[in-house]
């Protein structure tokens, strides 16, 4: 196809000894090698390309000095403590931990069900909320002061109606990083605004250990 014709005879075009005719070159180029190379490059780029660029999840930790204040602020009625243990197990209690002969609010659940529990708690807090215009105005002023754009009255209302809701997240030493990120992610999925990552108390850890033993979680 693309080979250059070098033979002078065999064409049957020669008319005479003095007649020289310009060689007819084919205008078609063999594109096969180019296409080959093209596809080779496509395959190379398909394999090396990273389509899902990593994203980031922002996390702000409280200063130690703020912590005591925050703790006192958290109303018992709006507090939900979530603990993470091994084997992707989730434990939780509402308000204060009460484990004795008469009462036990320490419960076991899984990652699948925790969303419902968070949402139930949130709905519970919201149902007790009485509209507070001062709180809404405070929020709006704060956003204005810090030049945070894209916030409106509806955002202020949303944030005020759940101002008593505090979720405390306590992973124990056997919880994985994935569990921790998942539960933080659950906070953004459920739109819970106040949450904290706190070190687990030894009482809670013992309860987890006990539950793990009785239900045989590995």
């Amino acid at each position, binding site marked *: 196809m693309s080979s250059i014709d070098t033979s002078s005879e065999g064409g049957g075009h020669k008319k005479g000894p003095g007649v020289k005719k310009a060689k007819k070159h084919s205008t078609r180029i063999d594109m096969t090698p180019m296409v080959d190379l093209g596809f080779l490059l*496509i395959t190379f780029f398909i394999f090396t390309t*990273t389509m899902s660029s990593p994203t*980031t999840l922002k*996390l702000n930790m409280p200063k130690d000095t703020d912590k005591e204040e925050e703790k006192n602020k958290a109303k018992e009625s709006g507090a939900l403590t979530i603990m993470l243990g091994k084997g992707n197990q989730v434990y939780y209690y509402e308000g204060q931990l009460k484990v004795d002969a008469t009462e036990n609010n320490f419960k076991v659940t899984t990652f699948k069900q925790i969303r419902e529990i968070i949402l139930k708690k949130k709905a519970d807090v919201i149902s007790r909320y009485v509209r507070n215009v001062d709180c809404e105005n405070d929020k709006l002023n704060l956003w204005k002061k810090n030049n945070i754009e894209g916030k409106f009255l509806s955002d202020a209302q949303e944030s005020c109606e759940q101002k008593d809701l505090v979720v405390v997240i306590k992973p124990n030493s056997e919880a994985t990083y994935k569990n921790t990120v998942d539960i933080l992610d659950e906070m953004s999925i459920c739109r819970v605004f106040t949450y904290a990552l706190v070190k687990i108390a030894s009482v809670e850890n013992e309860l987890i250990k006990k539950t793990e033993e009785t239900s045989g979680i590995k």
Partner: protein
Amino acid sequence: MPSVKMPRHNTDTDMTPFVDVAFLILSFFMLATKFKPPEKIPIKTPGSVLADKLPENDAVMMTIDSSDRVFFSVLSQKEPKIKVEVLKKLNTMRGLNLTDAQMEKFKNIYMVGVPLASLGQFLDLSAEEQKTYKDPGIPVLDSATNEMVWWINASVAAFSDRGIKLTNFLLKGDGESKFPTLEGIVSAMERNEEFKYQLITSLEGVPTSSELDKFNKKPKGK
């Protein structure tokens, strides 16, 4: 009687459109490709629904791998020299007695995962030896020997010398790593009075009809 002439079909197909498309795809992939920096250890990050962009400059990254080893890297593609400056700070801060030649080599290292005591030894290895070197990880678990404190401190100091306030603290953890390692890094950050993190995650879809989903679909403003 005239014979019926069969129309002659050309056996050559015109490949031009085909080639056009092929090169279009090729150019797309060439432009879309972003080469990953060489990673010695594979990290499987957990997913999250939040999608903030990842900064590439003026950031430090702390990495936790699946066996709880901790690595530290300074991300600054614009100014690779800053890495050396971080190490220089660290050298004077902790009295590591590293030579200038050793510190210069640090420029080519993407991630460091050795205790300060064996840092000089690690830098003396050739590039090939470093690739096969089994990093023990930076110790973080014990508050007395938490060396991440110094790495963060040195980075903040080195960046502020250039008039940059270091605010991008990236944390990239493997899903299988355990919480105490994360806690060790958190306490190292706290000792440096730094409280803001960005956890590197891979993007996940928002679950349908969840609160966040409803919020995203709601028209803005009121």
